[in-house]
């Protein structure tokens, strides 16, 4: 057998030079007349080690990283193909602390297999969940997902099984499964990673959702900022269709299911589920009033399951290993695992899948190793642009939906962005308002007008114009936006603004006016 070399094709790894490394390795091997197979896998998520090159040896895989193209010659000289020792040696990748400490359920295969090899997918446990699902009644599939305690990983945390049951119980001539892959939150990349690194798990999860609810057509709505994920998903759907995983007879069963990949067009608000449905229908991405729920009247007015990528990608393992296996992980009402995305100014950044319940402090200091710049961590924003900024005082908060809500925060899609002490929280609060103003769909007044007035108020505050009055005004405005907005864009923009104001009041005091030199 030819030796196998794994070089990630994940866009995070590409952004750090994986393509150059792959080309250099291929060229060097050709020059020396060495035969080896280069596999472009996804990323294991340890981005501080990317590009991480792995070699399959007789005693298992051996990793090297972070590799630059200039390291390639010396790597091959040191016996790369047999796992030889080199200054970039990382040993067994599964033993790297950042990877060894994780509980990988949803991301079990990500970074390990060739993302577009259905054979490798099956060899690593893929399709086992779908095979079980096709042999079950839809109600039993829904019951198992409900029993697992899986909650929507997009941010809202709504129980997935209950959503599915509503669609199953609604009669219609046509139903849809829509996958929300419009992962627009800064600090999040779990959806991108799984689509690039293990696309079949999402296809399998959506197909199970179709069987469970009687839907026969699925759409994956991917944001246009993810060109690599779009390309991989499109190829994977094609492969799944040819292999009979998708089509008139899913895996030879009487169930029919097929899907299409659709690409967004740069509107953040389309990550909101009803705006996404309008966008899929070919309209402006305007938020819809609820009711009717999408589960009753969704895409083209038909009952629709709309779930986040990670929710759907977690379903295959639940079907395969059983609800109890998944439910055993986690704390309180947050069951199973959550792929934390540790990002921003952080030393060991990346994706860390773990059971709910780690404290924010453990995540930032222990796993993340503190800031990248080496300066003290001042604030962390959890849950994307609409999430709260937490100071060090709240680092004992466990990562759990309810625990974060109790501290006026949210876990959202589990993105964690770290800021060092150079961050200006007034500037970050203003950015939150400005972002809301730019991205507002314009349907409801608190969001459309409130965000613009918010920017103006914070500008007056930083100019030192009647500061106390501005603080009172912004507090009142945030209250109106929180309770009066139609969706989470206007409704949650107050989280970053008010948390910045509450926890970092010193940044909201006007700078003392410099006295003119005499």
């Amino acid at each position, binding site marked *: 057998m030819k030796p196998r070399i794994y070089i990630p094709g994940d866009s995070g790894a590409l952004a750090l030079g994986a393509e150059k490394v792959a080309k250099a390795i291929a060229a060097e091997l050709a020059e020396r007349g060495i035969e080896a197979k280069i596999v472009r896998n996804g990323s294991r998520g340890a981005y501080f080690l990317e590009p991480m090159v792995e070699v399959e040896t007789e005693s298992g895989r051996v990793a090297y990283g972070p590799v630059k193209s200039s390291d390639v010659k010396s790597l091959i000289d040191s016996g790369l193909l047999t796992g030889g020792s080199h200054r970039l040696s990382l040993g067994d990748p599964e033993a790297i602390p950042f990877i060894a400490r994780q509980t990988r359920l949803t991301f079990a295969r990500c970074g390990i297999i060739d993302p577009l090899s259905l054979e490798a997918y099956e060899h690593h446990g893929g399709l086992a969940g779908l095979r079980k699902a096709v042999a079950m009644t839809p109600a039993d599939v829904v019951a198992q997902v409900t029993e697992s305690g899986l909650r929507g990983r997009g941010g809202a945390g709504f129980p997935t099984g209950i959503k599915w049951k509503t669609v199953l119980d609604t009669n219609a001539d046509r139903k849809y499964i829509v996958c929300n892959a419009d992962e627009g939150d800064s600090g999040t990349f779990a959806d991108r990673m799984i689509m690039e690194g293990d696309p079949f798990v999402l296809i399998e999860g959506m197909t199970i959702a179709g069987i469970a609810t009687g839907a026969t057509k699925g759409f994956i709505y991917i944001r246009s900022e993810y060109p690599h994920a779009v390309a991989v998903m499109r190829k994977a759907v094609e492969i799944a269709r040819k292999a009979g995983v998708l089509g008139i007879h899913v895996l030879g069963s009487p169930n029919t299911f097929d899907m299409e990949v659709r690409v967004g067009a740069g509107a*953040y608000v389309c990550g909101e589920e009803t705006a996404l449905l309008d966008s899929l229908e070919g309209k402006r991405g305007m938020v819809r009033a609820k009711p009717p729920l999408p589960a009753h009247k969704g895409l083209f007015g038909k009952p629709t399951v709309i779930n986040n990528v990670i929710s759907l990608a977690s379903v295959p393992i639940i079907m395969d290993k059983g609800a109890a296996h998944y439910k055993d992980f986690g704390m309180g009402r947050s069951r199973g695992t959550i792929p934390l995305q540790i990002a921003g100014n952080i030393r060991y950044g990346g994706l860390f899948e773990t059971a709910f319940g780690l404290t924010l402090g453990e995540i930032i200091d222990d796993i993340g190793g503190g800031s990248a710049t080496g300066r003290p961590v001042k604030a962390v924003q959890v849950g994307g642009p609409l999430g709260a900024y937490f100071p060090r005082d709240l680092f004992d908060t466990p990562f759990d939906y309810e625990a974060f809500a109790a501290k006026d925060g949210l876990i959202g899609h589990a993105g964690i962005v770290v800021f060092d002490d150079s961050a200006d929280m007034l500037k970050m609060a203003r950015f939150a308002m400005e972002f809301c103003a730019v991205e507002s769909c314009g349907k409801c007044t608190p969001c459309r007008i409130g965000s613009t007035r918010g920017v103006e108020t914070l500008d007056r505050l930083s100019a030192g114009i009647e500061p106390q009055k501005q603080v009172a005004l912004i507090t009142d405005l945030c209250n109106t936006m929180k309770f009066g907005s139609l969706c989470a864009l206007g409704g949650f923009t107050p989280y970053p603004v008010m948390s910045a104001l509450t926890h970092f009041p010193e940044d909201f005091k006007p700078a003392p006016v410099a006295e003119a030199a005499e």
Partner: protein
Amino acid sequence: MALQPASTEIAAQAASIIDGMKDLEGPLLPILHGIQEEFGFVPQEVLPVIASKLNLSRAEVYGVVSFYHDYRKHPTGRHVLKLCQAESCQSMGSDAVAARLKQALGIDFHQTTTDGAVTLEPVYCLGLCACSPAALLDGEVIGRIDAEKVDEIIAEVRS
């Protein structure tokens, strides 16, 4: 310099793109993506063609085109550089990267250099948040942008 096709040619080319996709469920966004891929922007001339083929009003089509940040009304430069300006990249100094690039290229966001070399656009998250600050240059991802990488980017877009 390549000649711009005449508006009748644009309409004819657009018509074939539309015909290829109009039977999709919810075809408007895929059609607009197809048109932008073909022309580099969404020419005004195609709006009535789309409207008539999809049985929509021109106002509806214009409303959709103007809603989404991706659809451009004008051609871009030879390169398109999208710089991430979202929170994660801000935490790693994307403001300074943007300022340096703007100064070096002599343009602001949403502008194209006078020699037509590059169009600079802000983008809000590329999903490369563990490698901030990040950018997308003609579809190629770039992470951990520092002074050296800024110089490389400038050299590449100027070449």
